[in-house]
């Protein structure tokens, strides 16, 4: 199924990436070419094949239920565009 302009706008919204009207057709054409390649997979018989999520067949390790981290808030917030009183500042979401 070809990628439509409506698809481009739908996924751009889901991905929170603004795409202006002037770029949309070029984005659509390139995505369409990529999906043309990806769609080769549809013809492969995978009935009964277990999906492979991970290279190594190991259980993810569990750690002890103990506090191991110290407070790095001010260090980590140094990289933020806007902070105040230890909080990240964003535009108002509630009136």
């Amino acid at each position, binding site marked *: 199924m070809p*990628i439509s302009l409506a*698809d*481009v706008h*739908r*996924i*751009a919204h*889901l*991905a*929170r*990436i*603004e*795409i202006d009207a002037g770029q949309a057709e070029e*984005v659509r054409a*390139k*995505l369409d*070419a*990529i*999906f*043309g*390649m*990806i*769609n*080769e*997979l*549809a013809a*492969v018989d*995978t009935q009964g*094949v*277990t*999906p*492979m*999520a*991970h*290279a*190594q067949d*190991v259980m*993810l*390790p569990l*750690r002890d239920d103990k506090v191991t981290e110290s407070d*790095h808030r001010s*260090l*980590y*917030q*140094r*990289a*933020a*565009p*806007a902070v105040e009183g230890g909080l*990240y500042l*964003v*535009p*108002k*979401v509630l009136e």
Partner: protein
Amino acid sequence: MIGAPIAELGAAFRAKRLSSVELTQRLLDRIARLNPVLNAFISVDPDRALADAKAADAAIAAGAGGPLTGIPVAHKDILATAAMRTTCGSRMLANYTSPYDAHVVEGLARAGTVLVGKTNMDEFAMGSSSETSHFGPVRNPWNPQYVPGGSSGGSAAAVAARLVPGGTGTDTGGSIRQPAALSGICGLKPTYGICSRYGLVAFASSLDQAGPFAQTAQDVALLLNAMAGHDPRDSTSLDRPAEDYTRMLRQDGGARPLAGVTVGLPREYFGAGIDPDVAKAIDAALAELRTLGARTVDITLPNAKLSVPVYYVIAPAEASSNLSRFDGVRYGHRAAKYDDLADMYSKSRAEGFGAEVKRRILVGTYVLSHGYYDAYYLKAQQVRHLIADDFRRAYRTCDIIIGPTAPTAAFPIGAKTDDPVQMYLNDIFTVAANLVGAPALSIPCGFDRNGLPIGLQIQGDYFTEAKMLDVAHRFQQATDWHRKRPALAADTD
């Protein structure tokens, strides 16, 4: 001898024929002269490098150094460093400095290496040519009109141009091996889980793996020794006994050091689409390996051709999730003008990411979106299993698998930037190792009609890095492709 391999530089330090400060200063001078041509580095910190070098010289004088003490290295700019910014080649992180070092950065620092700088790359490691960086394209030291490969093209170009003797890269679909091949050096992607991903800015978490670049297999082994090891900060880091990856290299192999090694030749890697010069170079390398005692057998990887479509579902899906963290709130670029919170996200991401990164996020968002998950993501994970089964079957009849790293040598800058699918097909021989999680290495084995390097890919089963490096090392003892250097590095003898 400033262009010598790591092992020789280390020996010169210990014999007091060269100091790390002297070497580092001369390499910094070369970087200042050549980086405007190659654009291999995004950040260089001469003061810090010389301070590291001075400390290394003191350690060596006290008899305390190891094989990497005083060796200048460069890290791909996707590996977090507290001392220098980590940009991922993106406008999004152009001014970002990490609060901590990546595990592999720590490991190489602990081993006494000198951090010279951070290298240029395709934005967020998404590319095969190092052209998508916010900081401009990297150029191939063998011919600056050509790409060095990607995404770790800055590190590959820096090592090839003898600006540093070793460096790091990351490999999600071939991003260490393909630039190693196109730049004429060695590069290894280890088994998934050998090098902790802590501090490696995530692109596709189930595929990403850091690894070393160097001139020789022996140097790659030395660097891997310092990069590998269990790290509880990465839940996918494997807890295995420490390995010395140089152990097999030190044995005397005699005249036929590869006797007993069976090399599998996948029919699918020697078919149509391979440049004739590449095919010729690979055939000559195979003849050399047979002379060294190896036996070759034909094998088949029937699902390998599906690696690229599988990869371009799984990697973008994981990327769309990983890169959702870049929202202009906690770090990275924030748009100057916006209406509300949602608009701030959309504009910050539209401005902060380049075209290829956006394209992959959109592909990933699509394949994970409601109603499409089974047809794309689940399907790809199933085919991934079939590909892994192909390799499992192949290793019943051979020890390693050999073929070309890439179907062609380097291509001119700009040649494939308008056609993402053509660009993706560069990864045809490299992506399977990432999907399977197995180790793979590229070493130089010749040149094409334009004088551009060709890479030989050595793939192995899980945890067989030492064996693969041994095969590469024996090949390099019998040949001199790894000693060839580009004209602009002729002054480094």
